[in-house]
């Protein structure tokens, strides 16, 4: 009896997939399947159309030059401030050259190949940077004009410009690190109307959100942890959550042996 049932079940399954008598595939006739497919086609086209339309309308409401909300770019200082997003903003800071994901710059002055890439990175960064800052033709893709950046001349970075020393001091154990503030449209950092400054032990003042730091006398052959902070009255220092906002820390190790 069970055999018979099993056999029935088997046939039933086959019949379910394709029933030649009623010409049904998976329990439905071709026209039924057709209708369903048609329905879903129309339904999804309609849905997609609706989505595109609303997206289009939404995109039309956006400003071409300034995003609607920038409060996320400024890390809220405290959770309680969430309801009234802080007008104070804390932009991110990054360093160049970027070594790896742990922000460690380790090289050996004796081995060219260990620092050559840093120099190349800086070269590339500065040439792109100056190019960006000088040539307006490159700004086409960015929806931000007029660009308020000053004309940028690499010579202003003096020893770190890569003009006098193509190796940015890496060869001599006096490496240049470039610290830059993340760009946030409309944000003009400043302290009491003055330009912000970055403290890294040694004070270097520049009006651009770009700071070159040259380590002139650094202990070699051991790890040096360096943290740089931005000081400006509209940029509060310190945020527990984001260690890249308003500060940057990295490790430097120069081996001479």
């Amino acid at each position, binding site marked *: 009896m069970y055999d018979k049932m099993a056999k029935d079940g088997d046939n039933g399954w086959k019949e379910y997939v394709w029933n030649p008598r009623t010409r049904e595939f998976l329990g439905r006739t071709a026209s039924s399947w057709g*209708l*369903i497919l048609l*329905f*879903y086609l*129309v*339904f*999804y086209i*309609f*849905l997609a159309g*609706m*989505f595109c339309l*609303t*997206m289009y*309308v*939404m*995109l039309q409401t*956006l400003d071409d*030059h*300034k*995003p*609607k*909300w*920038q*409060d*996320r*770019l400024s*890390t809220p200082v405290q*959770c*309680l401030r*969430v*309801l*009234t*997003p802080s007008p104070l903003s804390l*932009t*991110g*800071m*990054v360093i160049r050259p*970027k070594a*790896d*994901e*742990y*922000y460690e710059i380790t090289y050996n002055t004796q081995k060219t190949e260990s620092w050559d890439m840093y120099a190349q990175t800086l070269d590339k960064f500065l040439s792109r940077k100056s190019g960006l800052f000088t040539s307006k033709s490159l700004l086409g893709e*960015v*929806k*931000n004009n007029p660009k308020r950046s000053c004309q940028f001349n690499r010579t202003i970075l003096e020893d770190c410009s890569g003009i006098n020393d193509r190796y940015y001091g890496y060869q001599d154990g006096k490496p240049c690190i470039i610290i*830059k503030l*993340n*760009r*946030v*449209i409309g944000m003009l950092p400043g302290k009491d109307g003055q330009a912000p400054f970055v403290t890294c032990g040694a004070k270097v003042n520049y009006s651009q959100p770009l700071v070159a730091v040259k380590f002139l006398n650094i202990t070699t052959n051991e790890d040096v942890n360096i943290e740089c902070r931005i000081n400006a009255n509209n940029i509060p220092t310190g945020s527990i*959550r*984001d*260690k*890249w*906002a308003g500060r940057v820390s990295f490790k430097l190790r120069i081996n001479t042996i």
Partner: protein
Amino acid sequence: MDELKKEVPITEHKMSIEEVCRKFQTDCVQGWSQCSHPPPTTPEWVKFCRQLFGGFSVLLWTGAILCFLAYAIQAATEDDPAGDNLYLGIVLTAVVVITGCFSYFQEAKSSKIMESFKNMVPQQALVIREGEKVQINAEEVVGGDLVEVKGGDRIPADIRVVSAHGCKVDNSSLTGESEPQSRSPDNTHDNPLETRNAQLVVFHGSHCHSDLWPGDRKDPIAKEIEHFIHIITGVAVFLGVTFFILAIVLGYSWLEAVIFLIGIIVANVPEGLLATVTVCLTLTAKRMAKKNCLVKNLEAVETLGSTSTICSDKTGTLTQNRMTVAHILARVAGLCNRAQFKAGQDALPILKRDVAGDASESALLKCIELCCGSVRANRDRNKKLSIHETEDTNDNRYLLVMKGAPERILDCCSTIMVQGKEQPMDEELKESFQNAYMELEASERECWDQYPKGFAFDTDDVNFQTDQLCFIGLMSMIDPPRAAVPDAVGKCRSAGIKVIMVTGDHPITAKAIAKGVGIISEGNETVEDIAARLNIPVSQVNPRDAKACVIHGTDLKDLSQDQMDDILRNHTEIVIARTSPQQKLIIVEGCQRLGAIVAVTGDGVNDSPALKKADIGVAMGISGSDVSKQAADMILLDDNFASIVTGVEEGRLIFDNLKKSIAYTLTSNIPEITPFLLFICANIPLPLGTITILCIDLGTDMVPAISLAYETAESDIMKRQPRNPFRDKLVNERLISIAYGQIGMIQAVAGFFAYFVILAENGFLPSRLVGIRLNWDDRSVNDLEDSYGQQWTYEQRKIVEFTCHTAFFVSIVVVQWADVIICKTRRNSVFQQGMRNKILIFGLFEETALAAFLSYCPGMDVALRMYPLNFLIFVYDEVRKLLLRRNPGVCCDVIGDEETMRLGTVTGFGSSSGLVQVLVRPGLAP
């Protein structure tokens, strides 16, 4: 199963006591000497583990373990591992444990109720084991135990009498004899029922339990839920593995692929659903108890709803079990009546007095009392036969009176009293009585009285003549149908439920009652009726012409399986008369063979196999025996057939409502899965986090899903056919189509729109997003440029991403508002149904409040990774969704009949969400 239909061969009563002792390896003085092992019960911890590791839990455990694994790998390889995976693992574990505990307690609660039924009358037995008397529970008695029985005890098991002194047992529940039967150690008869040295108990004792009761059967709802879990698990595993492989192929690391796998599993599993189902069933069980249906196991609620055949007892269920005498042709009923008025009610009118005795006897007593005044005769406690001394002291004769069913009485009569004179009973007279009796029977019940000329007095044995009696007269009685029954039967008919009446009555009586309560509806004829009308032999009538049929129970034995199927299939109105419990079982089996879901009512001990075999056994609360109550799934507290119909309605309602709940819960799966798919395929930042998914499944979706269980019945609930258990699954492709294919897609689109709005307004236009994922999730990239050229640190981006999660979450909540209103009805328009479900409205507010709480409560950004979003999103979103929500109504007309009236849900809804916006915005908009 076939075993059940056969008589159990019993030979012990034919053996000598020594042989019996040898057979059971026991001693008739010392008792059984082997230690008894109580039947194995499932230990509590096993039950708990079953809850903890059954169903979806396995999937979630897998997810949790993968989480911990991922965290372990991260911790081993990175200096500063992100705690996300650890948290997620802990949350998942907590979810599994909490839902496991919840189900366990639910089950413990319901099994406690069942336990209480079992212990309502805890039957004890005194057994002698190893020479000592031990008091044990009746179900622990095993073959070989020496049982001691004293007056008033119930026999705990089938026993062979070893020694007895003046022992008499009441066998009425077994054989129907009301007279106590003597028992002694001697074998007096081949038939174990007749012999005096064996006492059978049909359904007590361990061997009966295991041998005679059919094994486990699964309730339809349990099957449905299992089916559903299989589908969902299948989909989850399939999707998870597919995307795991895809992720590996696309070059993601193992760790990332595992995290995707977890995400997809979590998104796919409706975590809260099983809890919702349990709560829904419990609610309904409570509601049914109010309506006099006590449900013993939760799943039975739904089973009742899918019932397509009800095999109902007649006495007490369809009828009131209160006989009233309808026609009197003689007045000698009082003398051989066992019924007595209870003391202390002389002041009451006769008809209202309480009577101790069976229904037909009390009817007679009342009748005689009314007609002839007080009956003070020397009533022997004999049901059918009584002997009296005559009042005339000179007369040394005795008076023997007898009453009983007409066909039997007639056989005992040789003479008849006609107008005060005794005349010989000839064939002609017998014929005319037969006709008279047929006529009366057509609407009523019967009773005969007999008057003898005088006989020698006698004791226990019938050593006197019981034929050659004189026929005195005829009385007819009626057991009136319960008031609500014809209506309820009509309801069953319109609900497509076949009502089969099973009774021990004479076929003619049965047919009369069936016609009275509408089981045989007006105008429908049986084969015999047609034959009589056309005046042709029964054999010439085409059975297909007759919709109704009355079958004699003994005929069932001779029918082949095909003939049986044929009868059950072709006759819509079936009455089965003179039925024995075994035949009841055959009927139930026959119906089940035809694919019907059968409900059986019963009250006697011997109905138990049928109650067990049926998909749902219904026992009678008042008249039912304990055994039948134990075997049943449901107990009718008022013994009323109409309560079954109420139960059916509730059962159908719960099926509908569960379907609604599941549709509602499943819908949000699509907007939970699609973010992962796009995250992997299009490399966009993750639109919806795993924790947020849990917030939806276990937080905001729970109360609305449960509130759907409070939904009232739709108007046509008792007008449609019972569901086909093979085709109308709880979760079928139509439900999946509407939940996943349509509403779910709309929800996903809504969520993605919210996501894109948040990102675009923060500077990341959609075009910039595609392919950004690698840099986006890279901790070391802290100057990622957006479409405006702004640069973002990792933490800043993540905050935007979590804001997106919140936006996605809130938009799902909003579309779930609409979804719950959509799911409120299956066929009716929401305008027909109205918004009277207060729990649902509460659910809506609760959902919203919870969502607002989760989004805005300080600290939640750390705990749940949610950030407040700009409420302006609603302005776009609402307009769009308002239009989108119109879709299902329009489209579903094409695709499925069940989801037709959806259009109505939209308009009423738009305003309410608008209101919410106004309320919320002033304080919160930046």
